[in-house]
């Protein structure tokens, strides 16, 4: 990270969760700006100009979706949603409004940090073409078109590789179905995301050699996929 500690605005009404988020993030060299309500969060966002926002969707005063819309009127800063499992519609709506990613309650610290890192990184740099991406036991050499899992080479078809490459160049970040379709199959197929599911399944078949240990591709129903090691430890 470039010199200064990144500032994270945490908008969360539950004091316990706010506390453990503060401790976790502070100990990983982030500066935490806590906000209890949506209104306070919006105000702080304008005055402090954080590097990223961690937003709980279940706020007491205003709808989380409203916070996103307000922030998006003037800023492109990464917004991470913290949402409950049984509120998928809210999650999808938040994503449509411009949220970048989310963690589902209850979440582990590893997962949270990985998402945050991915969001911040994507905001600053895009990964160079010649990088080697490592996700857990999966290793992808983007320039040499080589993929290995625990040093076992994996043979992928060109389309499968193209798909993995898109996922790998945004490792840790949630990519929408639409984005993936467009990047791999071009504009014509954007709406038809059933191919995508079949290709992802084929990739899993080849990459996730030991189903109990390897879950490199994470499915976010209704939204998209991300490439991420389990527990978020990259």
């Amino acid at each position: 990270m470039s010199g200064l500690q990144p500032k994270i605005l945490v908008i969360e009404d539950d004091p316990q969760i706010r506390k453990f988020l503060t401790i976790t993030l502070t100990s990983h060299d982030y500066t935490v700006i806590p906000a209890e309500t949506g209104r306070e969060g919006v105000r702080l966002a304008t005055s402090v100009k954080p590097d990223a926002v961690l937003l709980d969707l279940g706020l007491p005063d205003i709808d989380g979706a409203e916070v996103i819309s307000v922030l998006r009127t003037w800023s492109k800063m990464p917004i991470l949603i913290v949402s409950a499992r049984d509120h998928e519609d809210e999650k999808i709506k938040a994503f449509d409004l411009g949220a970048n990613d989310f963690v589902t309650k209850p979440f582990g610290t590893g997962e949270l940090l990985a998402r945050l890192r991915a969001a911040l990184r994507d905001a600053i740099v895009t990964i160079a073409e010649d990088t080697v991406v490592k996700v857990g036991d999966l290793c992808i050499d983007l320039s040499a078109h080589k993929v290995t899992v625990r040093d076992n080479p994996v043979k992928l078809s060109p389309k499968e590789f193209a798909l993995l490459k898109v996922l790998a160049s945004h490792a840790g970040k949630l990519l929408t179905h639409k984005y993936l379709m467009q990047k791999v199959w071009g504009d014509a197929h954007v709406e038809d995301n059933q191919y995508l599911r079949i290709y992802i399944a084929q990739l899993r078949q080849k990459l996730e050699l030991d189903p109990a240990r390897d879950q490199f591709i994470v499915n976010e129903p209704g939204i998209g996929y991300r490439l991420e090691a389990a527990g978020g430890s990259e």
Partner: protein
Amino acid sequence: MHPPRFDAHATPGSRFFAYATWWQALLSLASVLTVAGLSYGLIAAGFPSPESLGILFVLPVLCAAAFFELRLALFTVVLSVAAYNLVLIPPLWTFNLNNPQALAKVVVLLIVTLVVSALASRLKRMTREGQAREDILTDLYLLNQDLVGKTSVKDVCEAAEQRLGVITRMPCRIFLESEMSDIRSKTEFTPHFQERPGQWSAGVDPRLILQLGEADSRLGTLVFTPQEGERIVAESFPFRFLPTLAGQVALAISRAMITEAHAAQTRQADRERFMSAMLSSLSHDFKTPLVGIIGALETLQSRVDADARDLVSDGLTEAQRLNRFVVNLVEVSRLEAGVRPKCEPVHIRDAVSGVLRTLRPLIGMQTFRIIIEPGFPLLNVNPSLFDLVLLNLIENAIKYGPLEGDITIEARVTPDGVLIDIDDDGDGIPTPLREQVFTKFYRAAEGDRKIAGTGLGLYICREIMNVYAGTVAAIDPPDGTGACMRLSLPSDITLPVLVPQEEAE
């Protein structure tokens, strides 16, 4: 309703009736003799107008007609006319119809007594009917009094049985249609039961059987059991009016049934309100602290020494188990409240991978195999619900299987849908328990194994599969060991996809 009808067997002919008739005949004879004796005495004492004594011979006939049956009245007419002839028409103590005067006297008396007896018995019948009408009105009133205000079907039946018992002076029982499936009442009932709605059925069976309600919507059956040796006279009071009373009872029963159904509906609504209140309090008061606990323990994990890390990791496992339980509980309440979340195409491989990722902390040395038939369709279901089914089944396979077990997840296409088998090699589920394990909170291995659980997992699997017209069942394991859980889904929720023809390599 039809008026009560009656079988030949039920005709009054018992000894009691014969006995009474003899007595009445004797009484009539006695009264005729008295009148004859009195007339004779008066004439002997020099009564001035023997002729006028003839009117006395109408009296026994009048009495017989007023108090006895018509045939006894006619019998008395014969006796009276004969006695008149013997005593009042000379020569004394002989029948004399030879002269026209004597014949005329006898004929006049005959006509008078016949008319009198006809009139008197008609009068008697009318009085009796009036009495009966009054009685039945009283009975109806009392029955209504008993039935009014009874809200439960049971109370109505009990009150009706009691009142009808008092009216008919014999034990009475109501068999409700809903109870007829009950074996006890059926055996008590069927041997002589005859299907004749709204009619008496008598004969060999001394009991009186009466249908409650109309033939097309029968509510039940009324059964009167007479005492030993007693017979039911259907045309006599009060049996003649039983159909009216039965109608009243049927009305009260159907009214109580409506009241009961309404009460049940209200109770159900109350329960649902309670459930949703519990649901929201669960999500708030349970889930939020769990997020804090799990987050805090995760943070701790990387900061403590090796000994403490073990403890923290145990705490984390437990907290995650509690979280799965809360998820199950919340989902059960939502399903039971009729919530049906949105569907979207789900690939079985995505679902299994996600579930294994969630269960990762639980997985030890088990080996997993995922076999998916090529061309396996996408499933149009709600992703979280479908994940929950797999999660519970795979969690069971891990929990109830050996530490180094093999767990196979196999997905296949069949002519009418798809099958997904989850096969482990633990102890399996004994065949007689294979249905029971799906009941709410049922646990087969109660106590004897130290495996945590609440018995909700399989119940919720079944609830979710029901939403998609699918099934979940414990089947005979194809490999002969362990448990094999089979999910099946009908083809109308599958979305076949063409495997894209890829550019050749």
